[in-house]
């Protein structure tokens, strides 16, 4: 059928099918800013303006838009001139991956056109249909406020940091801030919100505590605009799917409806007979090559317990077959025509039950040889000890033991996994894929496809979030097999349901802490026992649990420590890497346990933790026993920088810690069923995997004195391209605009392990710094030649020039032209790589304020504060954005997100609709506050440590401890959903 649309002011007549969505038709016409997030519209990634009103194009038929006016973000800007809203999103740092940025910009446009002076509440409402997994909504809200102000004629704001004064340690914490905190001391620079009906205030600037140890810099440490901001705010074709391929086929995946079954037969004849179907692949026609899918360094940690297609399924959502067809509809129809004969087997979902005698054996295949005890479903047994815990317990004055349970949650990147594969002109397989680990993916997929690594090129364009789910070789083999089978380009994208049940998630764990203390409250012995549920396959199962042990037994000094862990197969969809990687589980248990110990000992919680937490110079003595690599690290690392004390003090002030024992705060006379509380959790994470994570960088100068920086590092939207560019710019004495970043292409860029383990700034950043230092030396030498200096060692680069000690200078452009064209020609360029022997911990203090309805169990989170020591924040805007977004994900983990299953192992409501898997929206957020506490980490580039994962660690225990403070009830299982809290209150006779 034909439809007539006005798109961005241009009349168009388009052909479409009656069943096609508006999103699909617009994307076919090249409007790539309208993006897929789900089939039911909840993500809002496909939002556009229909006759000036915000609407989701993924849940509208194209035919419904016939005769209407459509606006997409492609129509907003003229050339390089951005619309004020786009400009505000760029300047305010509101863009991370940028996947949903066009939708947010259009929501803002509709709002501001109707209401030039919107309140924060109105802005948050306007954004309420666009889920953001990255920013915590703070900077997008700021951007809309800023845009509205500029469009009203006000001057643009400058985005800078808000520097605060360090707080001195008081003699007693409970005396701190006696009488409350004067508003003028809170240090914030707030927007005037007008209406306060949401009772949320959004900070305009990140708060920042400066260290005097940090030298002055020009580009590093500054709130530079993201290097990819322009293309993201304009909706340019930057993501995997934003490409047109002639003759492309569409792949679809048939998944298991059973939690555990043997496939007796697959009959694909009807599917293959369907016109338009080009291939059907399954266990009968794909070679059986065992592998581990986790995107990790060579050799991948065992077990190698997966094959592309097996004759057994081990969870609902497991792979059965895949098809490639001319259209998505034909592919879907073909799936229905594949006849699978199953022998349904008993299933087990609980990690404790799976280890018991008589439990179904999940990996009983004859070629399974990597498991610790496959007959008991035990993949790994991890045992690490320092000192002797039994002796320690014998010497202890007090012993406490508690059990905790943490559940399964999904990463929910708004862009699902997607890969497009094709043969290039040299008949090499190109995989354009949404991955965090392009180099691992290439190496890992090669044997599955029977191709040498050199015949595969993996390209990672911009990706719409990953959070660990894409630290996996998850779908690239399917696409590769189908490209090989058909000779045609193939596109494959997971549906939102498949993203839940066929992708990866966070490991559930049962955790038991047993702790012995001396008479003064110092830890003398601590044992952490964990049973980790790795689901149907063992990917990341070993290393996630070792990180759990590392994080659980590193934060506090103790002479005797033991980590004992079983990693167990079950029939739930497979967990894997998820931002935080075992630490959020550990920290929930540890920080809850330490809170309870302090209270039972009658000690102040923070004094007790401070007495025991690690400080500069303390060893991380369990670390050598819990490494990821094959070889043990023999050197015991020590803490070389810590801002923890300042983080805690700043956080206490920001949350109003003194109120936690104030009856006027804790009780609400107008609402007698409400109790208020404040909780704290100390957080410590790692920075990269020592001895293993490696990043490479290559830098060359161009004719105009600009530089190409090629890195293997993978920017997920975190801003790593920007941060790495800032490091290069700082060393080379140029503005960031002179650095042209290109990343993550296995043909073009140096190797990098990928974006995980909070490694990019520290590892890849050091590689960039070293490459830049080499280039700097070459420039200095060339400047010496041009300025006729006998000694060029004292030449200094700044302001795009090389200065001799006598003040004479030559521009970098002249140096480039001289070097490339005029005399002793050579390309000024260098390559460097870096692997770190250590993993300096970032630290943080996480605080939460809650209200608990003791009649319903409903917990309402009012405020979260996180003060973070990430060393030197190379870019405080992107760093604070990481913390804001991470805190919101962590809030979901502790409060409302949950993969729930029925008795057959089917996930209940694998969707993002209200009442299903719940992600916080813009209009229901608690107040968030981020404070960056700067320290100088001597091993990091310009003093940097990690920031990406630590925000995931402390929210759940801080919420738990706040609920404890509010009600006196200890709840040792997350999430804190109303019925769980209600039942705990009932058991404690509190109502």
């Amino acid at each position, binding site marked *: 059928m034909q439809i007539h649309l006005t798109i961005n002011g241009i009349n168009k007549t388009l052909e479409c099918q009656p069943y096609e969505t508006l999103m699909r038709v617009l994307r076919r016409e090249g409007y790539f800013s309208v993006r897929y997030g789900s089939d039911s*519209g909840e993500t809002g990634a496909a939002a556009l303006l229909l006759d000036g009103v915000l609407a989701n194009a993924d*849940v*509208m038929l194209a035919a419904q838009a016939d005769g209407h006016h459509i606006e997409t973000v492609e129509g907003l800007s003229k050339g390089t001139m951005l619309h004020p809203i786009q400009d505000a999103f760029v300047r305010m740092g509101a863009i991370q991956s940028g996947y949903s940025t066009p939708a947010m910009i259009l929501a803002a446009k509709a709002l501001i056109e109707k209401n030039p002076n919107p309140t924060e509440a109105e802005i948050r409402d306007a954004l309420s249909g666009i889920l953001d997994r990255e920013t915590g909504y703070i900077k997008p809200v700021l951007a809309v406020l800023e845009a509205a102000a500029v469009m009203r004629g006000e001057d643009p704001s400058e985005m800078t940091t808000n520097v605060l004064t360090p707080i001195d340690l008081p003699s007693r914490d409970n005396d701190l801030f006696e009488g409350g905190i004067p508003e003028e001391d809170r240090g914030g620079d707030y927007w005037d919100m007008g209406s306060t009906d949401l009772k949320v205030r959004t900070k305009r600037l990140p708060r920042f505590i400066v260290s005097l140890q940090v030298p002055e810099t020009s580009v590093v440490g500054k709130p530079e605009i993201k290097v990819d901001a322009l293309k993201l705010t304009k909706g340019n074709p930057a993501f995997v799917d934003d490409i047109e391929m002639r003759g492309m086929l569409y792949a679809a995946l048939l998944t298991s409806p059973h939690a555990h079954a043997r496939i007796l037969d697959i009959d694909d004849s009807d599917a293959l007979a369907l016109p338009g179907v080009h291939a059907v692949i399954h266990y009968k026609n794909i070679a059986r090559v065992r592998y581990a899918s986790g995107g990790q360094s060579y050799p991948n940690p065992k077990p190698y317990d997966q094959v592309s297609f097996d004759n057994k399924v081990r969870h609902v959502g497991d792979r059965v077959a895949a098809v490639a067809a001319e259209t998505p509809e034909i592919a879907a129809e073909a799936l229905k025509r594949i006849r699978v004969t199953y022998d349904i087997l008993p299933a087990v979902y609980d990690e404790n039950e799976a280890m018991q005698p008589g439990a179904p054996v999940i990996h009983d295949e004859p070629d399974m040889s990597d498991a610790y005890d496959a007959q008991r479903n035990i993949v790994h047994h991890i045992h690490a000890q320092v000192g002797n815990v039994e002796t320690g317990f014998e010497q202890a004055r007090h012993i406490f033991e508690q059990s905790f349970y943490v559940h399964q949650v999904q990463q929910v990147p708004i862009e699902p996994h997607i890969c497009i594969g094709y043969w290039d002109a040299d008949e090499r397989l190109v995989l354009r894929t949404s991955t965090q680990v392009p180099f691992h993916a290439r190496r890992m997929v090669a044997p599955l496809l029977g191709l040498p690594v050199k015949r595969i090129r993996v390209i990672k364009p911009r990706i719409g979030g990953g959070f660990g789910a894409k630290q996996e070789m998850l779908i690239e083999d399917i696409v590769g097999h189908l490209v090989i089978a058909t000779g045609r380009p193939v596109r494959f994208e997971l549906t939102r349901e498949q993203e839940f049940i066929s992708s990866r998630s966070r490991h559930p764990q049962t955790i038991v802490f047993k702790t012995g203390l001396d008479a003064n409250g110092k830890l003398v012995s601590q044992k952490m026992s964990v049973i980790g549920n790795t689901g149907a396959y063992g990917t990341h199962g070993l290393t996630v649990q070792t990180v759990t042990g590392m994080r659980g037994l590193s934060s506090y000094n103790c002479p005797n420590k033991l980590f004992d862990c079983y990693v167990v197969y079950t029939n739930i969809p497979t967990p894997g890497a998820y931002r935080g990687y075992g630490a959020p589980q550990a920290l929930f248990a540890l920080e809850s346990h330490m809170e309870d110990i302090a209270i039972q000992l009658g000690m102040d919680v923070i004094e007790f933790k401070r007495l025991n937490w690690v400080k500069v110079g303390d060893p991380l003595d369990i670390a050598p026993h819990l490494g990821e690599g094959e070889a043990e690290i023999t050197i015991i690392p020590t803490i070389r920088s810590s801002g923890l004390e300042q983080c805690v003090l700043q956080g206490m002030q920001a949350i109003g810690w003194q109120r936690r024992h104030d009856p006027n705060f804790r009780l609400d006379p107008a609402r007698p069923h409400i109790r208020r509380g404040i909780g704290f959790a100390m957080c410590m994470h790692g920075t990269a995997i020592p001895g293993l994570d490696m990043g490479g960088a290559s830098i060359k100068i161009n004719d105009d004195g600009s530089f190409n920086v090629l890195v293997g590092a993978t920017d997920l939207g975190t801003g790593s391209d920007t941060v790495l560019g800032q490091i290069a710019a700082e060393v080379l004495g140029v503005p960031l605009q002179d650095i042209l970043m290109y990343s993550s292409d296995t043909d073009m860029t140096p190797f990098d392990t990928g974006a995980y383990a909070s490694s990019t700034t520290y590892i890849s950043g050091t590689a960039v710094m070293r490459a830049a230092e080499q280039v700097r030396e070459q420039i200095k030498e060339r400047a010496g030649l041009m300025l006729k200096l006998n000694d060029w060692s004292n030449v200094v680069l700044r302001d795009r020039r090389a200065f001799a000690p006598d003040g004479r200078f030559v521009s970098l452009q002249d140096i480039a032209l001289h070097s490339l064209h005029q005399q002793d020609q050579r390309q000024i360029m260098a390559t460097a790589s870096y692997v770190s022997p250590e993993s300096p911990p970032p630290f943080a203090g996480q605080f939460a304020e809650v209200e608990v309805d003791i009649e319903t169990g409903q917990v309402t989170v009012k405020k979260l504060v996180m003060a973070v020591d990430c060393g030197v924040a190379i870019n405080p805007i992107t760093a604070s954005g990481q913390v804001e977004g991470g805190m919101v994900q962590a809030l979901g983990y502790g409060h409302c997100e949950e993969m729930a299953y029925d008795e057959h192992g089917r996930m209940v409501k694998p969707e993002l609709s209200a009442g299903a898997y*719940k992600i916080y929206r813009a209009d229901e957020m608690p107040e968030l506050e981020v404070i960056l506490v700067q320290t100088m980490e001597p091993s990091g580039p310009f003093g940097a440590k990690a920031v990406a994962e630590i925000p995931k660690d402390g929210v759940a225990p801080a919420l738990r401890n706040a609920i404890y403070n509010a009600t006196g009830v200890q709840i040792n299982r997350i999430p804190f959903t109303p019925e769980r809290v*209600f039942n705990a209150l009932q058991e404690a006779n509190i109502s």
Partner: protein
Amino acid sequence: MITAYHRPDTLEAALQLLTRSRKMAVLAGKTITDAGLDDSIDEVVDLQAIGLRQIHEHGTQHTLEALVTLQTWRDHAATPAALRDVIHAEDSFTFRNMRTIASLLYVPDAESQLVAALLVCDAVVQVTASTGTQSLPLARFLAQRVALLSTSIPTAVTIEVSGTIAFANVARTPADKPIVAAVARKTVLGEIRLALSGVAPMPILIAPNDVENVKPAGDFRGSSAYRRQMAITLSRRVLDALG
């Protein structure tokens, strides 16, 4: 799969199309998620061209034509504040733009606080078939919905907005769909209407004394026992609020 799209200009034409095939679905808003599309559907009738976008006030009675969007209803000056809050809480802004009064009726949600609010406002649904128009209370419409919608189209909902409305709910987060919600209205004559969502396959009107007898189905957000207890607690709260 949808093979034909129809956009009739009149209600009569829409009804003719509807009765022509049992494989026809009605698009009564901008989103296909409210149309009950499944593999059996191969044609859709889009009502967008037939009008029905007005809100009429007759004293304390408001008649909401079927294609009034939730956002339009929320923004309407005469919509009572409490009702406005319930409408606001029903959906995100984007979906409030896309969903209509009729959307609530085509795929009613067991946990819809807004449908519960309509019930306490004595909502009467006007349904038109080729044989004529009938009006029936919302509760009866919900009970007969499947049969009615196979041959007729809801064209308006009339509600009584006098009196005082109170609502309370329990949810995982402030904007999440309530696990259980209670909505009550005290009429100008002092009569009480109480409705609950989340305790039955559809939101229900219920006498305050019967609340203890509800037997909800449970799910992962709330067991049967929990939902029942919440029905009692939240009913008490809204009734207390009305005095």
